[in-house]
């Protein structure tokens, strides 16, 4: 490990500690905002773990997230909560593994829409099963888990995801994925098992999304399919990650924070024109920051350095 790496790790750990102090402000509003940001940070970062290097845009986040939520909703009265988190992780990873195996042959936009269709199918099947077999009426998750705890849980998960992402980047797997992203044919010719690498990463991404869903379930209290599986989550995650820049491990979080704050400001200041303003802000981002914020920052750094060298 080089000196710079150690320093980066320390900086990251310090930032995490600062973030963990947020609930001590005691201001519920910031905690609520923090939960949203933490949730999307985990989702977007784990999404980018897979989609960043492979350039596969997945719209299945909502499916895994919803599976996690439903795991908790169906099991909360029977199974201890921590065990449900483990089950959610397994369910999400297995589902993602199956999807990964099925989608190997697809590329480009076909994969995008495939994952969207898949998410919808899972939602329909879960709804149907609940309607006909679950025997429950509504699904309630009544627990003592407060927003502060959810926030810390999400933050801990975020740390794990960052750590995992960092380790993957250093590993052979990460190297293989970057080659796949650059040119899949070359990757296959140089003896990389492209299928295995992609499926593994997709499983990590799906499992994490399911755990996020499971962690968020106590916050929603009342679980319905249209809320647990809302396709908006998938879209939002993609947008946030791309806004930050999916090519770097910390890219998504840099997209999540300003996006969540922008979202919050428009909601707060212009409740009746929110949709319109958000759309306009969105277009501004697309046109003014084409390569994500990371890309912009890298440009800037490059320019400064050039000037210095000149």
């Amino acid at each position, binding site marked *: 490990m*080089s000196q*710079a*790496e150690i*320093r*980066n790790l320390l*900086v990251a750990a310090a930032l995490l500690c600062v973030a963990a102090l947020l609930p001590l402000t005691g201001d*519920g*509003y*910031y*905690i*609520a*905002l923090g939960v*949203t940001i933490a*949730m999307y940070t985990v989702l977007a970062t784990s999404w980018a773990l897979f989609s960043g290097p492979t350039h596969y845009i997945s719209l299945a986040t909502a499916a895994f997230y919803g599976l996690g939520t439903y795991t908790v909703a169906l099991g909360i009265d029977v199974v201890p909560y921590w065990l449900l988190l483990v089950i959610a992780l397994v369910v999400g990873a297995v589902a993602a593994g199956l999807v990964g195996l099925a989608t190997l042959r697809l590329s480009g936009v076909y994969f995008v829409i495939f994952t969207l269709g898949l998410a919808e199918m899972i939602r*329909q099947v879960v*709804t*149907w099963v*609940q*309607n*006909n077999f679950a*025997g*429950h*009426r*509504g*699904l*309630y998750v*009544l627990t003592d888990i407060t*927003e502060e705890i959810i926030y810390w849980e999400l933050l801990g998960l975020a740390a794990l995801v960052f750590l995992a992402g960092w380790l993957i980047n250093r590993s052979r797997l990460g190297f293989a994925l970057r080659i796949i992203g650059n040119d899949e044919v070359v990757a296959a010719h140089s003896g990389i098992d492209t299928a295995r690498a992609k499926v593994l990463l997709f499983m990590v991404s799906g499992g994490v999304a399911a755990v996020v869903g499971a962690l968020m379930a106590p*916050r*929603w*209290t*009342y*679980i*319905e*399919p*249209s*809320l647990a599986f*809302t396709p*908006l989550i998938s879209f939002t995650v993609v947008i946030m990650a791309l806004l930050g820049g999916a090519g770097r491990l*910390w890219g998504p*979080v*840099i997209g999540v*924070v*300003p996006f969540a*704050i922008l979202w*919050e*400001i428009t*909601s*707060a*200041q212009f*409740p*009746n024109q*929110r*949709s319109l303003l958000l759309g306009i802000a969105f277009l501004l981002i697309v046109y003014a920051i084409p390569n994500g*914020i*990371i890309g912009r*920052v*890298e440009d*800037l*750094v490059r320019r400064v350095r050039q000037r210095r060298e000149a």
Partner: protein
Amino acid sequence: MKRRDALKLTTATTLAAAGTLAAPAILRSTRAAGPIRIGAVAPKTGPLAGGATVSHWPNIYLWVEQVNARGGLQLADGPAMVELIEYDDQTNPGETIQAVQRLANQDDAHFILAPYGTGLNIAAAPIFDRLGYPQIAVTAITDQIEELAGNFPNMFFTLGSTTAFASAVAEIVAGLRDSGQIGNRVAMVNVADAFGIELAAAGRPIFEAAGLEIVYDQSYPLGTQDLSPVVRGAKDSQPDAFVAWSYPPDTFGLAEQAMIEDLDVRAFYSAVATCFPAYRDRFGASINNVLGAGGVNPTDPRFQEYAAAHQEVTGQEPDYWASATTYSSLQILEQAIEAIGEPDRAGVSEYLKANTFDTVLGDIAFNEHNNNERYWTCGQWQDGVFHGVASTGREGAVDVRLKEGWA
């Protein structure tokens, strides 16, 4: 990792941190002394926006307008005008929770009105409870009232329980059968979303206990574009009564398909949005004698006065169920605040539990589980007016009529 990367990381985090620090200044709106700030959060966009635009928002505007026209709320140290702060939760419980937090911490709202829809109300209940705000829920229909009120002692329920709505329909159909007007074959369908699933699950045993035979029992997904297989399947089962635990877009679709297929039943029931004026405007006389969830007593002069004011202030007609109840919940809040004489939330909560309130629906009081026990459960379109035909203790119910074709 290289030095360059570290530099980038620092730059990026600085930017992000700057954004985070700048946000509070922008978000924190000015706190003015004087008026009573009332916070409202409900869907303006998203799947539930259509319903909220009919039943929820207009009543809030009407109430604020009327209170301020009277000179404001009469408090102990003089009148106080009402200032409304409204947010759109996009039918997303996360946004609802955040908006409630924002209203309490940022806007310093004295009171926060309950959100719209069962899921959003229950999702917001823990936050209302923790922040100590009373939550007079209207559009929250559940069988968990006792458990919820036990967990969240400041949550109040006004519109009723799932079982009561299913029971009302079963009683009406069984009543028609007992008087020999129809047979006992019931076709039951439900939308496969929480509300529909819950009502169907509650309905099955109740219908069977009433000696009714469920000859067709299917669900259909939310957002189904073609309901003709559902209606045709129901028709093929030759039912005497058709019961649909439905949501707005498909409530309309089911009626249209029933007309097209000529589903000739003597009792036709669909749940949410049957009582919307838009339903009558679309189908006119065809839907005469259609049964629907909810109801009011439209001949009550108090309701008529309310409906006229609603029309005048908001430019639209109220619906014949949740609208008047939403307005009543605001009247209840108003009376409680004025009785306490100051914006004391704990005091208002206690007052709500102990007293009876005079509303456009008549007297309303909460039982030991914070539940209003007297509410309308079923109504019927009779000659262009939606009359309540069943309730748990409201006055003015009219007799149920048989549906005589769709012409």
